[in-house]
């Protein structure tokens, strides 16, 4: 028998106490991992969404910033319009390399003419677009033809059908973009030409027609020239193009960033409280256990155990419970976060992307270290005190 086996026997011999420490370790590790995964997931998602948009500046109608951000991040369709002539004004501003227009549309809700309810649709101009086109060239080898579209990672053709029906128009899904964890994953991308065709057909085939106001666009994506300062260009746009708001890429999704920060603060607060309470509880439990086993530990000393052995045997129990509880907590946290990610996104109102495997391994390691160090720290003082006690005094009633 060795120290580990002895510690395991003691754990089994004090089931209730062991379960409490196990549960504390489980909750601390699980909750901290979940919190970090959610916050990291939200940040990664925002970053990917910005990369996907690819724009230095996105110009939207004045007052529509939050709506557009919500549409892009959460996939909630939005209808905003500004005059098409704004595009020319923006393109003429010094420092602007490309200005590409987009139309924001939506499928109908619970209508038989649309096989997907309230899906966010983004129509782009293939001649000027710089976000979807590069992907198309790489993956499909050609531009989208009339009646074709690409979708975010969660867009798919309904089971048993060959096309997606929108407003009575059959659209062929040619491919799916990689996941961003944002509303862009539930978005369909189609050309201006196809959008106009859908609008035309919808007049006769849809429950309600798709309305695209003439000479209007929803937003303009702007790429600045190399060496130009996006800030100055944005200010220029604001001054020279009335009725619009230019949003620089780093400032995009500010509402959500604040929401994420708020969530982070809330989670850190709860985590700190949980951690402190757990440490106090574990410390109390080990103190109680050390006191109750005072005589037994005195006997071990009488049999030849050193102070170090007694100290290590109590810590070994703490470590075992921390590792086991931490591992279970982490496994449950990973499972729950993976399985309930859609619910998380909807209820928290933030985007979310699952971490990559290397990231996940690092996070898991961090969670285990937290559980281990917390429980070990809590058991340290009781273990030290009891190991220093006079064996003869310890064995007295």
């Amino acid at each position, binding site marked *: 028998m060795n120290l580990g086996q002895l510690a395991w026997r003691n754990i089994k011999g004090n*089931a209730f106490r062991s*379960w409490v420490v196990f549960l504390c370790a489980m909750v601390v590790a699980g909750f901290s991992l979940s919190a970090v995964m959610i916050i990291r997931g939200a940040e990664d998602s925002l970053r990917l969404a910005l990369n996907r948009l690819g724009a230095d500046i996105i110009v939207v109608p004045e007052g529509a910033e939050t709506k557009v951000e919500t549409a892009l991040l959460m996939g909630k369709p939005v209808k905003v319009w500004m005059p098409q002539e704004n595009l020319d004004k923006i393109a003429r501003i010094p420092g602007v390399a490309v200005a590409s227009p987009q139309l924001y549309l939506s499928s109908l809700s619970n209508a*038989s003419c649309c096989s*997907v*309810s309230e899906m966010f649709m983004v129509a782009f101009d293939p001649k000027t677009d710089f976000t979807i086109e590069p992907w198309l060239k790489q993956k499909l080898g050609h531009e989208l033809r009339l009646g074709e579209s690409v979708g975010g990672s*969660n867009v*798919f053709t*309904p*089971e048993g059908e060959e096309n997606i029906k929108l407003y009575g128009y059959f659209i062929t899904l040619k491919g799916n973009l990689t996941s961003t964890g944002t509303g862009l994953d*539930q978005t369909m991308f189609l050309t201006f030409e196809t959008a106009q065709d859908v609008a035309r057909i919808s007049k006769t085939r849809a429950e309600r027609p798709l309305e695209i106001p003439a000479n209007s666009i929803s937003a303009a994506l702007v790429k600045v020239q190399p060496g130009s300062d996006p800030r100055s260009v944005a200010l220029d746009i604001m001054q020279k193009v009335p009725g619009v708001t230019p949003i620089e890429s780093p400032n995009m999704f500010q509402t959500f960033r604040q929401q994420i920060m708020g969530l982070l603060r809330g989670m850190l607060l709860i985590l700190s409280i949980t951690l402190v309470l757990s440490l106090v509880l574990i410390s109390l439990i080990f103190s109680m256990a050390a006191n109750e086993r005072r005589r037994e530990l005195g006997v071990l000393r009488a049999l030849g155990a050193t102070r170090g052995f007694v100290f290590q045997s109590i810590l070994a129990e703490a470590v075992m419970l921390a590792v086991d509880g931490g591992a279970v907590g982490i496994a449950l946290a990973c*499972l*729950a976060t993976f*399985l*309930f990610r*859609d*619910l998380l996104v*909807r209820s928290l109102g933030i985007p979310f992307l699952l971490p990559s495997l290397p990231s996940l391994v690092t996070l898991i390691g961090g969670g285990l270290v937290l559980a281990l160090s917390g429980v070990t720290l809590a058991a340290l003082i009781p273990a030290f005190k009891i190991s220093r006690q006079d064996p003869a005094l310890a064995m007295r009633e």
Partner: protein
Amino acid sequence: MFKIAAAIIVVLALVIGILPQFTDCQSQGRALALQNGKTVPMKCHWTAIAEIGMAVPLVGVGTVMGVSKRKESCRIIAGLGALLGIFVILFPTRLIGVCASADMLCNSVMKPTLILSGIVIIAISIATLIISERQPEQFA
């Protein structure tokens, strides 16, 4: 240890049987409209019904696990628990399924809850099987 495992299984069995009744599309007032005008329940509703069929024997599994004192009984019950757990997962994923859209409650709540419950039941059953192997034929 077995009593705790049994209690967890019974609680999860209740979740498996009851939760889908309130999270399938039928309970949200949604149904499939056929061309002849009739409405039929969506497949998540049938999954919910099937899960009742798993929940009831799982309550039995948990109860027997809690009171059993024989190694052989524990082994059989644990095996049965694991098998039922597998079906709890298969019904919403492969055998019947739920609605495809991530918007639907059956997809965002019902399915992940059933999968998680199934995994936990399988894990507990396997752990019970392993631990009972180390016990004597008749244990306290």
